């Protein structure tokens, strides 16, 4: 059993705030294939197309037959723990600051043997384990050994981290109650528990669902952005009643509003969730002028830029600040960021711009170990998609996808059936998808 994380004491203000030393981050081009899969929550290894050998570490050619025809394939991660060791010394600054650190040698059922970081609930060797790939604080894939079977109470509230073996139907009892609080795991993830979160727009159904989900996930404070306070929108009163919630004036179109709020709370925010967006359903010809497109760009792109300029530095400065250190930045993008959906053409363009900016933000946050998570949902079930047929993503599904992404240590999330399907088609052939979307989507 993992001991539950206790609410940390207030930090001692006379001590210097610890700075981040990233874990080893260098990877070759081939090894980044594992990071690309882990960024979306999959554990993939190279599999030889010629002899079917599964290999680790990643290489340019098959270790058995020397074929260069290798493809990345998802792995179940089932294996046997052969031995463990606990580091009490390390010359690497990241591990040196986090000793002791337990490692294991695992033989996968698929063949390769691997060195993994061990979850605290994995016992001594030999033992069945389940290996998952997570992104570490440097944003690179690392392998984690989870217990293959755990006796414990049924899952209560929070979902287990991905890779832990509990996502199979009926497998909840494999997951113990506080497993996410494991010290090693918390270094890899951005769990909202006891963290202080800023949600940039509480007026939308999505924003309200995010706030509710964060409170349920144990966030200590949720600051909720409240633009144009004179506009009363439904549902808002429900979240303002929550004791964890504090409304803050925040209008991403107004640079002064963003910098004033950053000055006030920037040094305390651990997770930024930028869900503010403007969405209007026009292409080029369906609406005269550029005012609507500008309004979309002003929030969806420039708003994100203003927010990143003002809140980014403070987050970077606190990325090693105790167990509730600053951890993550979440952007609500859209699947339309990948390929323009002409009926929502200007919105698509603004989300493509926001996506590009989010990549820049990720590059600038990575040296500090702050995770940048991008959500690419399909059409959300809100008033601006009223005329779109289902399936549409419920606001609550967006919220739970965000909390899950924070707990799982992933970078890119595609919630909803439409997003999943379009992603697949985009990966298959972006040109074909472009033509299909131009013809109405199907």
């Amino acid at each position, binding site marked *: 059993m993992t001991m539950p994380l206790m609410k940390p004491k207030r930090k001692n203000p006379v001590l210097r705030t610890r700075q981040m030393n990233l874990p080893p981050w260098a990877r070759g081009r081939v090894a980044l294939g594992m990071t690309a899969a882990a960024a979306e929550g999959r554990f993939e290894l190279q599999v030889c197309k010629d002899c079917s050998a599964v290999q680790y570490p990643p290489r340019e050619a098959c270790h058995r037959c020397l074929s260069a025809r290798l493809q990345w394939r998802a792995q179940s991660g089932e294996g046997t723990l052969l031995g463990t060791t606990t580091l009490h010394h390390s010359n690497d600054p990241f591990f040196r600051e986090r000793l002791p650190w337990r490692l294991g040698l695992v033989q996968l059922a698929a063949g390769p043997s691997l060195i993994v970081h061990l979850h605290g609930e994995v016992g001594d060797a030999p033992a069945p384990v389940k290996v998952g790939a997570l992104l570490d604080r440097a944003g690179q894939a690392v392998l984690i050994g989870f217990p293959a079977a755990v006796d414990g109470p049924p899952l209560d509230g929070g979902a287990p981290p991905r890779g832990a073996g509990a996502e199979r139907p009926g497998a909840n009892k494999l997951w113990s109650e506080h497993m996410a609080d494991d010290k090693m795991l918390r270094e890899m993830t951005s769990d909202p528990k006891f963290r202080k979160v800023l949600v940039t727009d509480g007026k939308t159904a999505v924003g309200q669902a995010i706030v509710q989900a964060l409170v349920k996930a144990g966030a200590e404070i949720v600051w909720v952005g409240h633009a144009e306070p*004179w506009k009363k929108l439904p549902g808002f009163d429900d979240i303002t009643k929550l004791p964890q919630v504090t409304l803050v004036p925040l209008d991403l179109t107004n640079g002064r509003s963003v910098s004033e709020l950053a000055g006030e709370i920037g040094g305390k925010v651990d997770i930024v969730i930028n869900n503010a967006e403007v969405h209007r359903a026009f292409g080029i010809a369906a609406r005269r002028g550029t005012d609507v497109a500008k309004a979309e760009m002003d929030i969806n792109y420039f708003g994100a830029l203003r927010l990143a300029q003002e809140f980014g530095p403070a987050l970077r400065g606190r990325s090693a600040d105790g167990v509730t250190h600053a951890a993550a930045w979440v952007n609500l993008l859209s699947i339309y960021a990948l390929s323009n959906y002409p009926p929502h053409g200007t919105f698509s363009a603004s989300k493509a711009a926001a996506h590009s900016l989010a990549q820049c933000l990720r590059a600038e946050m990575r040296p500090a170990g702050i995770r940048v998570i991008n959500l690419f949902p399909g059409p959300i079930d809100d008033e601006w998609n009223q005329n779109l047929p289902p399936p549409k993503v419920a606001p609550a599904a967006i919220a739970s996808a965000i909390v899950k992404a924070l707990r799982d240590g992933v970078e890119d999330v595609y919630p909803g059936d439409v997003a999943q399907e379009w992603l697949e088609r985009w990966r298959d052939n972006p040109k074909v998808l472009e033509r299909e979307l131009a013809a109405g989507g199907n």
Partner: protein
Amino acid sequence: MAQSTTTVLGALVNALTSSRIRVVDLTQTLTPDFPQIALPPEMGQCWPFRIEEVSAYDERGPGWYWNNFSCGEHTGTHFDAPIHWISGRDLPNNAVDTIPVQHFVAPACVIDCAEQVKADPDYLLTVADIERFEAAHGRIPAGAWVLMRTDWSKRLDPEAYQNFDETGQHTPGPSSEAVQFLAEQRDVLGFGSEAIGTAAGQGYHLRPPYPCHYYMHGAGRYGLQCLSNLDLLPPTGAVLICPPLKIQKGSGSPLRVLALVEDKA
């Protein structure tokens, strides 16, 4: 050099210098926090006031401080030209750049409705209010501004200033009959208010919708809104100086509104 008091302007300058004529600022400060008019979200929107620093004696400009700002023609304390409304769109000289500049300096009558508005935020100025004003202060002269004092500008909290509920905005303005009376019977220059529009918050439900816009602009008259400090003006005798920006074919413009007020000797 002392100004000659034998000319009208010389006497005016002397009165200003000696503070016998005071200059009262009737303008709200342009700030991003000041609310803008809100239309249903599917409609085109007036931009709120936004400002971004260009440089502040720093690496972006070592010796100077300046900003870029953006806003709509109808942001903050602003002037409405007849072309703003469909009823005034074909009138001659109906835009801010072509309005005769003499109109930008004109007397003002201030009708005090503060008590009525205190009791009813949807209060509509009536013809009876105007007649009562004239009984006390004389007939409203042709070519004068009529300003409706409501003390609404004292609502400093944007939420209270906008005063929305689920049926929309609740702010005072003139009744349809009062607007017609002022435009047709009194030949006024325009109508000024303290709230976000010259028409009442519920003006969309009057007949016609937004009567102050419909009749005033249809008659080639002007509007001023988001005024403040109307409580510092006498009922009659003040002179407004309110030239909008010279925007080509502009429907309105943010502006500084000044009032000259002569102290009683």
